[in-house]
């Protein structure tokens, strides 16, 4: 009886009917990011529901912005939107489409393809724009959130290892990391939508029904967004369960998940996408990012969790963090130097290109933060180790607050840097032909 019931339930779920809401694009010819050998004769967009054609329903744009598509029309029970094409010369093309969905909404989208050449990424489609100032701020918030989560967990598990925390400090720790993981999810969604807006370039009323799947499924950025959102949702669950059932291994799980999924930034950024990139550049970027998150997040946790939540642990935590910060700074500098050399082929790029100038500002701020940290390490730490305390603690608290403010400024400049385009690499020297060498 039970088995029969299960079979019935399974069959009921396995026999589909139809879908919800607006028309969605199911297939398209040419497809997203396709490199065609010959010119297509027409564009065909297949929807899951009936649609009506709009006057500029399909535009096939050359890099110069000229539309080559004919007037669009619908066929096959109103589910295919079609536009004929002349013979397209070799080159990259952008398709911008719009259709009136049966429920009255206008659905829109954009994607790219190439004839005889690789298709450009959809973020470089004709009419798309690069990251805006708002996106710089959003990316900065993302970095801060990541630092709170990863740095906060690292601080709790590595610096405060073996130290039972008073309830007040424990609560503060969960607040810091909880805010971090929730902000990562929220800010990540906002960042993705802003990137989609850059790509679609539609007014808000049309953007909300815009198709973001070419961005989600056809770019490294989109794939990283999917992986990171799912990963950090699991991290949030692990962190919450660690608080609920008070199991340390769940904190380690959250820390491991946070470290693993933070790599999405390195695997989708300049170090993975722009030449000359290699596994080494991706690894260096990841090491740079992780060290920065552990340092900045650790600093914030030191102030919020220990300085104000567990004063009895100040000395131990400060001395341990000071030792770990030395290692982190070494990693940060080594990886940062390697990446700078990789992205700026000439020293003069530092002051002649926009990317270099932003990097100079970042280096200045990093130098200030390092000096601040060095003062803590070489002046304050020995006094604390010798048993000094009292007023030193309150001065150190204020000083660390200043250091964290500089660290936040570094993250803001890093966000601008990530959204900037590095200068182009010099073209590789052409191999000398045999007949040339004989001359």
């Amino acid at each position, binding site marked *: 009886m039970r088995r029969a019931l299960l079979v019935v339930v399974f069959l009921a*779920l396995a026999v*589909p*009917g*139809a*879908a*919800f*809401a*607006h*028309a*969605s*694009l199911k297939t398209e010819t040419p497809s997203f990011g396709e490199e065609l050998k010959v010119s297509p004769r027409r564009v065909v967009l297949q929807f899951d*529901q*009936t649609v009506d054609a709009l006057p500029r329903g399909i535009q096939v744009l050359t890099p110069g912005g000229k539309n080559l598509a004919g007037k669009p029309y619908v066929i096959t029970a*109103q589910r295919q939107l079609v536009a004929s094409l002349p013979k397209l010369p070799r080159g990259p093309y952008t398709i911008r489409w719009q259709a009136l969905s*049966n*429920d*009255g*909404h206008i*659905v829109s989208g954009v994607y790219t393809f190439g004839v005889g050449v690789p298709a450009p990424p959809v973020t470089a489609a004709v009419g798309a724009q690069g990251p805006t100032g708002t996106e710089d701020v959003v990316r900065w918030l993302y970095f801060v959130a990541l630092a709170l989560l990863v740095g906060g967990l690292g601080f709790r598990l590595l610096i405060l290892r073996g130290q039972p925390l008073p309830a007040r400090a424990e609560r503060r720790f969960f607040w810091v990391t909880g805010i971090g993981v929730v902000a990562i*999810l929220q800010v990540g*969604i906002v960042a993705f*939508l802003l990137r*989609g807006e850059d790509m679609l370039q539609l007014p808000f009323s049309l*953007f*909300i*029904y*815009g*198709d*973001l*799947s070419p*961005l*989600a*499924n056809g770019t490294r950025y*989109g794939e990283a*967004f*999917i992986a990171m*959102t*799912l990963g950090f*949702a*699991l991290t*949030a*669950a692990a962190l*919450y369960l660690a*608080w*609920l*059932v008070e199991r340390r291994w769940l904190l380690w799980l959250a820390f491991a998940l946070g470290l693993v999924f933070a790599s999405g930034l390195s695997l989708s950024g300049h170090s993975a996408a722009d030449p000359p990139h290699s596994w080494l550049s991706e690894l260096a970027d990841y090491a740079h990012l992780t060290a920065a998150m552990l340092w900045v997040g650790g600093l914030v946790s030191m102030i919020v969790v220990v300085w104000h939540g567990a004063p009895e642990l100040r000395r131990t935590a400060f001395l341990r963090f000071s030792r770990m910060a030395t290692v982190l700074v070494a990693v940060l500098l080594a990886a940062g130097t390697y990446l700078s050399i990789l992205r700026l082929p000439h020293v003069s790029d530092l002051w002649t290109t926009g990317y270099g100038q932003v990097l100079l500002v970042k280096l200045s701020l990093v130098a200030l933060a390092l000096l601040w940290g060095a003062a803590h390490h070489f002046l304050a730490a020995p006094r604390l180790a010798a048993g000094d305390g009292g007023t030193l603690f309150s001065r150190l608290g204020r000083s660390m607050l200043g250091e964290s403010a500089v660290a936040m400024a570094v993250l803001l400049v890093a966000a601008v840097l990530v959204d900037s385009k590095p200068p182009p690499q010099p073209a590789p020297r052409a191999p000398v032909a045999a007949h040339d060498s004989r001359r």
Partner: protein
Amino acid sequence: MIVAGLMPQAEFVHWWFATGFLMLGLVLLAEALVGPEVWRKRAWRPYVWPSLCFAMGIFMWPVMTFFTNSAIHMVAHGSWAEVLMLCGAAELGVARGKLHSQYWRLTSSLALIVSGTAFLVHEQNAWMFSRAAFLHHTLGWTALICAVFPFVLAFRPRSLVAATGFATFFVLLAVLLYCDRDVAPIFGHFSQFAGVPHR
């Protein structure tokens, strides 16, 4: 491409969640009918519905990330994922004894308000002859109205009417999500005024 090939149809996903909400509703209904004293005779029982709610929130994230063919759907699915996790987390905290205030129950009310608003905002059609528009409006207004039940429960935890109403909401939600097909005998394509059926 591999992921695209494995993607279930949208209606399947709605039905899976409908099944989850049906289970949620039946558990809550059982608790309302037998009363909290009998329900808590087994230590694991108070954890059942909050755990289910929390788990459904986690499972909603893949829906948000893999169904990106409309920005507003993405945002709506994201908001449901968040409020399901929030509601489950708060109720689990209360059940475990980590949260002490009964006002944490207000998160359920908040979850229903956010969910209902998301349903209404992501379907802006004024007319309701088609299945999609009708379902969105029904789901949205039902969630908004039923938000009163957990609100009352936060102040009067022993209210049978509020507990039953809260449980019934999830059963109703499940029924409406199961109706997610144009050719369904109920809530299908209502009128030719809305044009030809979508499917």
